């Protein structure tokens, strides 16, 4: 079988023979000139919401503490305060105050070697304190789910509040709700609120799930609000919002029914926007960017916001290994981002829609097959080699979080796979693999929030480097573990190139 690698506009000048294993990577030049298809990236904003007192409600801690209540006390003793979370080097990279390339030079462990003078405001993101997050929860609650203790709220959260009037009550009232099964919300050791279920008989509307959903909504809304403010863009200009958050908004008749995107649009005040959700496990944001860019390219929308809120379920996912290693609990933040897409302007960093690659069913799920599908083939389509990419944005999980549990250094594994493929194709020597990894890769700096580390986290630095002329192009590659849902044994993935619209 010989497939013509073409999109509907047939703008590629390569075709790829995929008839059998031996022909992988064989390229045949054809005559049509390349005409890039670009959609502009107006900007991107990231946020980390520091919620140490919600770590106990992460999926893993919740299960383990129920089974062994003493673990709750141990966990509480290892939580970081906001200053420590702010001065944590990977977080400073995340919000744009430190370049990823600099991280390599910083002394480890990063959780001990904190950055002096670190601020919670970054060049393209910020860190949000828990009190402010609680105020956001109260201001975005349309169904009287959360109630805060009045005195605490007025002293600590009211200054951050906006939106709907929060429900406030006495400590006795809050305690009574918790006694009836509401989730207790703490600030340090103090009980400050109660989060209730949405329906007595609906397992999709229990308090744990609704808190997860509302947390995703308010953290995504925060990032979008911040981005609109940075860009000085009128909220009414957004035509469409795509959420790629990791949640399952819905009821018992439609678990995961979705369209959190529209709820986020409403929360931010994007009155002219509608929206929808795009999900593909950790690869969701990359698909969402492609879908958003396609809406622009087709003329259906003029400005699209792609957003994702944080994953509460993943808080404290590896807390046991952190406890064993006498480390602080590093998975104490909800990651979120927002990007705005529009027709490409001259010189603007853009998505190359003609570079987009999806991982097809037939491709196989070995790391090599993924790299071929998501890096080699899309580059070949554009007449490029693996060595023509200045930076690869892969799954940039912070290794300081993952290695203590034996999960390895995920980005390094991904970079080595790309380097090995470059060796196999004769683009570099085997002895140059480490140079390839160092020059075109970076250390991971994202919290293990699933969708957030998966390449999209690098977009902010990529845009800065493209604007500054430090790089010509970056390839973002994300993978999704579809098999976790028990519907297929397959993995998945999506990639695209970003460069400047200089043609």
């Amino acid at each position, binding site marked *: 079988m010989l497939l013509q690698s073409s999109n509907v506009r047939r703008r590629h000048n390569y075709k790829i023979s995929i008839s059998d294993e031996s022909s992988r990577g064989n390229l045949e030049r054809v005559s049509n000139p390349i005409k890039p298809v670009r959609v502009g990236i107006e900007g991107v904003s990231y946020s980390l919401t520091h919620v140490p007192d919600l770590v106990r409600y992460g999926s893993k801690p919740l299960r383990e503490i129920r089974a062994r209540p003493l673990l709750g006390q141990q966990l509480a003793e290892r939580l970081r305060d906001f200053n420590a979370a702010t001065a944590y080097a990977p977080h400073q990279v995340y919000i744009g105050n430190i370049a990823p390339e600099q991280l390599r030079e910083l002394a480890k462990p990063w959780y001990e070697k904190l950055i002096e003078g670190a601020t919670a405001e970054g060049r393209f993101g910020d860190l949000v304190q828990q009190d402010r997050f609680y105020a956001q929860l109260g201001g975005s609650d349309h169904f009287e789910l959360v109630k805060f203790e009045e005195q605490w709220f007025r002293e600590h959260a009211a200054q951050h509040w906006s939106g709907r009037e929060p429900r406030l009550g006495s400590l006795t009232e809050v305690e009574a709700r918790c006694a009836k099964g509401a989730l207790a919300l703490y600030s340090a050791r103090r009980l400050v609120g109660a989060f209730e279920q949405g329906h007595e008989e609906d397992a999709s509307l229990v308090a744990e799930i609704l808190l997860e959903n509302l947390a995703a909504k308010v953290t995504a809304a925060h990032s979008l609000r911040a981005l609109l403010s940075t860009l000085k863009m009128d909220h009414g200009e957004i035509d469409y919002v795509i959420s790629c958050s990791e949640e399952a908004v819905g009821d018992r008749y439609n678990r995961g029914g979705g369209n959190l995107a529209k709820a986020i649009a409403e929360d931010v005040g994007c009155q002219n926007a509608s929206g929808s959700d795009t999900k593909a496990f950790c690869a969701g944001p990359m698909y969402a960017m492609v879908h958003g860019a396609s809406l622009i390219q087709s003329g259906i929308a003029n400005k699209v916001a792609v957003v994702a809120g944080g994953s509460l379920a993943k808080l404290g996912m590896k807390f046991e290994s952190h406890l064993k290693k006498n480390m602080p609990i590093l998975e104490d933040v909800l990651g979120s981002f927002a990007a705005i897409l529009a027709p490409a302007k001259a010189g603007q960093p853009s998505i190359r829609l003609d570079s987009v690659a999806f991982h097809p069913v037939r491709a196989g799920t070995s790391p090599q097959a993924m790299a071929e599908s998501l890096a080699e083939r899309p580059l070949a389509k554009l007449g490029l080699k693996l060595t023509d990419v200045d930076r690869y944005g892969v799954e940039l999980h912070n290794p300081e979080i*993952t290695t203590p*549990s034996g999960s390895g250094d995920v980005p390094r594994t991904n970079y080595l796979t790309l380097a090995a493929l470059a060796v196999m194709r004769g683009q570099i020597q085997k002895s140059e693999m480490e140079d390839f990894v160092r020059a075109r890769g970076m250390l991971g700096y994202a919290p293990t929030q699933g969708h957030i580390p998966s390449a999209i986290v690098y977009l902010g630095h990529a845009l800065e480097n493209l604007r500054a002329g430090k790089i010509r192009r970056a390839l973002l590659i994300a993978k999704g573990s579809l*098999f976790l849902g028990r519907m297929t044994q397959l993995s998945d993935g999506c990639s695209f190139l970003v460069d400047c619209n200089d043609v």
Partner: protein
Amino acid sequence: MQKGKKIIAIGERDGVPGPVIAECLEGAGYEVVFQVTECFV
């Protein structure tokens, strides 16, 4: 020697997937009683 030996195969998404391990081991005569691929991040 391998024939009849029971195996649980746990693969990893960024490494070797579970079905691949199972196929190799079954080819060598093992009985794979359970295989799964996990994602550790």
